[in-house]
């Protein structure tokens, strides 16, 4: 089934910067950044709202182009990788098509990735995100959290080598979130896929990722680069002392870089 197993490659950012220009005003969203994200790892981007995390994610997906620098995934550009449906994005706004049912929206993730129909695989994904029994519902009948879960199932449906998650569990209730945090990562980790995750939740970042990048307020730059040394999967116990220590480390880094450079310098 996993035709793309072990295909993932390193993501390399070389001097990547993004400046938005709107009506004569320039806004620097991402400061020049050099970064290598190892193949098969999960990286979390944390930082204050509006700091440019999502922009960075869009740059990696090639949905926006950097103003400076370049991004390569293995030997490919993001655009080339998208061209062969090698990556998938779970957007902050679920962007489900309102005229398709839940099953139809998840199946779309396969068909957009040019994969043959597979009703069983779709049903399995729907079960995993806990939407069993809602297969034939339209997005308008679902709660915000349910829509996000359907969007995650859609992103996973195409078996991407690179999975980009933009606050995927933002609207999901705490209990479900906890379960998804436990059950979903193995889906891509087992295939050796690379994942980049934007999140506001420190504990979620520590729970899911191998590496946490703490970003400064706009323009985004990497303030701290924290490697999570805890064991992967079920063994990573949120109640453990080591887990809490890592959380505290991330929080400290966030606090230290709360203020924009201009104010902090004074």
């Amino acid at each position: 089934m996993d035709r793309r197993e072990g295909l993932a490659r390193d993501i390399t950012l070389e001097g990547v910067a993004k400046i938005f220009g709107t009506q004569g005003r320039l806004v620097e969203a991402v400061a020049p950044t050099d970064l290598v994200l190892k193949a098969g790892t999960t990286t979390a981007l944390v930082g204050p709202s509006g700091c440019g995390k999502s922009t960075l994610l869009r740059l990696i997906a090639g949905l926006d182009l950097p103003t400076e620098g370049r991004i390569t995934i293995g030997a490919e550009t993001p655009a080339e990788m998208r061209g062969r449906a090698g990556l998938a994005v779970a957007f902050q706004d679920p962007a489900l098509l309102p005229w398709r049912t839940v099953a139809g929206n998840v199946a779309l993730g396969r068909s957009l990735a040019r994969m043959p129909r597979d009703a069983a695989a779709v049903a399995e994904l729907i079960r995993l995100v806990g939407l069993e029994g809602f297969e034939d519902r339209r997005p308008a009948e679902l709660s915000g959290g349910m829509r996000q879960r359907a969007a995650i199932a859609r992103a996973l449906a195409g078996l991407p080598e690179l999975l980009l998650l933009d606050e995927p569990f933002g609207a999901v209730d705490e209990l479900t979130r906890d379960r998804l945090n436990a059950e979903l990562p193995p889906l891509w980790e087992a295939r050796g896929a690379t994942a980049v995750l934007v999140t506001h939740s420190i504990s979620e970042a520590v729970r899911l990722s191998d590496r946490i990048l703490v970003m400064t307020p706009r323009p985004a730059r990497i303030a701290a680069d924290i490697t999570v040394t805890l064991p992967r999967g079920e063994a990573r116990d949120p109640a453990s002392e080591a887990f809490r220590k890592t959380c505290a480390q991330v929080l400290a880094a966030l606090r230290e870089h709360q203020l924009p450079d201009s104010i902090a310098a004074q």
Partner: protein
Amino acid sequence: MPAAPLFGRRLTRGLWVLLILLCWEGLARLSASAFVIAAPSQILHYSATHADLLWRAFLTTLWAAARGFFWGNLAGVTLALVAVLLPRSERLLSTLALLVFCLPLVATGPILRVLYGPGDGPQVTLAALAVYYTTFLPVLVGLRAVPQGWRDLVRSYGRGGLTLLREVRLPAALPYAVAGLQIAAPAAFLGAMVGEFTGAERGLGVLTVRAMRALDLPATWSIAVIAAGASVAAFSTIGALGRRLDLAPPEVLLAAPVARARNRWEGPAHAALATLAVLMLWQGTMDAFGLPPFFAKRPGDVWDYLVTDAAARARLWDALAETLSMAVPGYLCGLAAGAGLAMLLVLAPRLSAATLPLAIALRSVPIVATAPLIVWALGRGGAGTVTVVAMMIFFPTLVACRHGLARTPRAVLDVFAVYAASPLRRLLGAQLAAMLPAFFASARMAIPAAILAVTTAEWLATGRGIGALMATVASTSDYNMLWSAITLIGLAAVLAHALVFALERWVLARTNPEQLIR
């Protein structure tokens, strides 16, 4: 109030219909000497005794309308697809489509008659011309009403414009297309009838003209009732088909997103480009088809005629002034009445349940087919024509404004409810802003409708203004004057459109900035 059982509701509705019929009958009998209203019994009697004639005429008109419906909608959908696939062409295409739609059927009818000769070519063409714009606009809106997130989704899989079209744009446009087709059905019937006014052999339009010349009240009323009935039936059938497809209702009805000018030269530059395109298209098609200069006047001919002939110029100006003095008040009254009633119905929701189905049904009545009746009823002075124009605009505006009011965000309404705000406060504070985009879209669409209504009323009933002028000069083969009148009407329509558009941008920039797209 618990929901009445289905049978009970049908009974109530039946009783209402009966009551209305009785009032109608009584009114007609009381005013029999005024010679305005035919009683239902008279209509029934006429229809029964002339069933064969009416049936054959109906089928003729229906057949022409059906073919016009097909070709017009095909053209509308194709134009919308081209505009979306080649975004650079969109503004020019929209302008040209609007301009052609503004050409008064009353004037294009005689020209098409000359072009086609005998047969039903003009009817079919006019029916197509009457529908393509009301399909083009909503389909274009539907195709473009695609949130950035859906585009990103398709792009994130490296898929291009065709996938976006197939998976996102076309399904998103489907409900809009149904709404457009629904409006198109009565319009096609109307177009076919106007085509028949201009010298066809058979059809309901021919019978209308004949009945009016003979001042045959029951006949005129019978035909109007048949035309109205057919239109309502077509309107409801397409609506029911749309519901069978289980489509979500469109987000916006006819409201094309308003583009914000990038700089101050863009508007004038675009206008100049559009003018040039129109002139080239005009001259080009005539030359390409080798149309005889005797009746197919070129832009140069019209210019020469208007520059050299002062008497003709004066005649044309007088007619235009007369027409505008009817069209402008009618247009404003129709808009004000439609928006006003929509707002009133929000304040008095109980009234709304009773009036809305009626308004939706009446929206599909080809008002113009009933224009002679209205002008008869109100006299040949200004009141009749103004009323025809106002009625033509009133129903679509009412429906569009109701639609806009219903789009007030739930959360905003909740905020007003939390503070126990009065319905008036809620209307002014929240719902009015939600209504404005729909109102302005309706105001733009109403311009061609007003021109159609005023010229038809003038032609069929009052014998004054530019509508009558066009009919007269068409019958005397004064084609210089006919083309000059068409040009002037087209110009007036475009100017009115630009005016409404500018006002719309000015108002929406203050009330609904999200409606303005870059």
